[in-house]
């Protein structure tokens, strides 16, 4: 077990190094610091101002190789900053990025955790129900509805929800955020509802396939031969076995809870990490974008290792190799 864990962690570390190299290529070679500086200080700024901006943000080092001090290059600086979580300050307004991240994590979690839990509690039973009625009209109608739900752009769900439920019916505030516990649910209700509906179609389709695949396995036939009712088969046998692949898929989504839903957050004015990303796009704030990509990948890699480990614990058929 320990050897397995160590090997998985080493693999994860290699991936993280790959991500950092990829980010370096994107943000230091493809889009050079000179480009970023140009955008930040304006097209007409004199060269001295440009140089000054580059020096102030620490982008004036040699890229790969410094004959005087091999550790003093931009590549080394990039790795050092990211790996020590010392992200520096924003390219747009010089606010420390780590301060932004701390402020944004709370609102992001406030939206994404309930969304995640409710999505599971609603999606899995519905998928099981559709799979129970497989090869009948209910199954076909269920599938058609989930394909319909999947085909609508997320933008339309958001705009439609804000317009109908927020503006016409006045059930919810159209957008906004307030961390005090009495008013928070009012603000979160509409984004939650929209997020749930938008994610339901794809979720049901995936889970249904898993359950239907399970029903053609031998143990189901055995259970049926013993005289177990169809409902008992579904709840006791198919649900339990089907949960393994579904939960794998679910655990992989946990890291995204932190980075939040970019669209939902910025549409509903929730000041989370998703909104920070959108602001960074609008402001050409490459330092913040870099950091968000790094953190997203780091969480993903950790989540993946966690999944693999929990998978081996949950499913005795999986051997540690």
């Amino acid at each position, binding site marked *: 077990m320990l050897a397995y864990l160590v090997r998985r962690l080493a693999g994860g570390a290699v991936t993280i190094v790959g991500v950092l190299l990829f980010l370096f290529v994107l943000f230091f070679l493809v889009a050079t610091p000179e480009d970023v500086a140009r955008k930040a200080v304006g097209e007409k700024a004199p060269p001295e101002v440009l140089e000054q901006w580059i020096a102030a943000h620490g982008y004036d080092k040699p890229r790969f190789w410094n004959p005087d001090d091999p550790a003093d290059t931009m590549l080394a600086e990039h790795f050092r900053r990211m790996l020590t979580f010392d992200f520096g300050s924003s390219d747009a307004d010089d606010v420390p990025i780590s301060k932004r991240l701390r402020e944004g994590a709370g609102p992001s979690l406030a939206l994404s955790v309930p969304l995640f839990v409710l999505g599971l509690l609603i999606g899995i039973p519905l998928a099981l129900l559709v799979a129970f009625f497989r090869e009948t009209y209910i199954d076909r109608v269920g599938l058609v509805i989930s394909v319909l739900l999947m085909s609508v752009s997320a933008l339309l769900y958001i705009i439609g929800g804000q317009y109908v439920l927020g503006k016409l019916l006045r059930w919810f505030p159209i957008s906004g955020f307030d961390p005090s516990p009495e008013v928070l649910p009012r603000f979160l209700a509409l984004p939650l509802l929209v997020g749930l509906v938008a994610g339901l179609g794809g979720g049901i389709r995936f889970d249904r396939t898993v359950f239907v695949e399970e029903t053609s396995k031998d143990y189901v036939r055995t259970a049926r031969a013993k005289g177990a009712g169809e409902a008992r088969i579904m709840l006791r046998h198919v649900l339990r076995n089907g949960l393994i692949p579904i939960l794998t898929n679910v655990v992989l989504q946990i890291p995204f809870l932190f980075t939040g839903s970019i669209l939902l957050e910025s549409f509903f004015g929730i000041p989370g990490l998703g909104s920070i990303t959108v602001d960074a796009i609008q402001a050409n704030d490459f330092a913040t974008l870099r950091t968000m990509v790094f953190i997203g*990948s780091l969480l993903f890699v950790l989540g993946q290792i966690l999944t693999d480990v929990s998978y081996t614990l949950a499913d005795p058929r999986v051997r540690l190799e």
Partner: protein
Amino acid sequence: MEAHVVSNLIVAALVFGAAGLAVAIRRNRLWSEALRELARRRPIALAVVALFVVVALLESVRWRSEPEGPEAGDTVSRFEARSVVDRMFPHDFREKSYSAPLAEVEFYGGAPLAHPRSHLLGTDILGRDVLHQTLKGARVALLVGGLTSLIVIPLALFFGVTAGYFGRRIDDAFFLVSSTLMAIPGLLLLIAIIMALGRGPVQVCVALGITSWVGFARVARGESLKIRELDYVQAARALGVSEPRIIVRHVIPNLMHLVIITFVLLFSGLVLSEATLSWLGIGIDGSWGQMIDQARDELSRDPIVWWNLVAASSALFSLVLAVNLVGDAARDVLDPRTMKEHR
């Protein structure tokens, strides 16, 4: 070369490619039967897809002609290359601002229109005809979905098959690159690439390509790992058939059903991603996503301007739905085993 000439050449290449493909399908019994079965199962969805393809092709064929319209009009647009779709509308088919569908006067203020009762879907804030804009959007959608998949699938097939078939070092390198790209959350990766490359249609397609090849390449790798061990491949190798020839004759044909299914499923995902990017301000000009994005502000007006949003989103919805339905049917027709879906 000028942009519209390139566009025409691409259309010609696509039409020739499609004709060649049609001939190849007619000759192959398996594929022509699958196609017939698909047409039997989903006639309407296929027709809808075909309609969008035709509109997009018509919008891509452009040429310049003698300056049209009144001298006093917009002098630049009089000399622009115009597509077949543009030519279906009168040249000066514009108003000054919003007009409701088939209205006689302007929506706000009630000034008389230049073309009363003729804008079937009304006009947008700049007075452009919404029906015209929506038809033009079909080209962007097919460009994003179709052209990106056409670039992505051969590349993914190449890398996936090479990694799976040859294994060892190549497979290790492939695994490293693909797991790096997969570790970055999709939308963030898209944003990062577009921001680094700069905004524009080609950049968006490249970014979508980089983010979407990994999934299919991994499937292709897994399949070719299996096929490599099959008896007839071993037999071919024992007979001294060269490796490239084995790949072309035995491995790739066995992956073709996966290629078709991936293409269809990738397509709708790409079109929806572009809509999201448009909302973030880094999409492609003239797309339906951009029309939906603009419509956001229009809903807060009173009385509301709804036709813009309705036109763009129903076009987007019907294309994606039709493609999804065709994709589901194609999977059933081409793959007897139910393949595992990816969320």
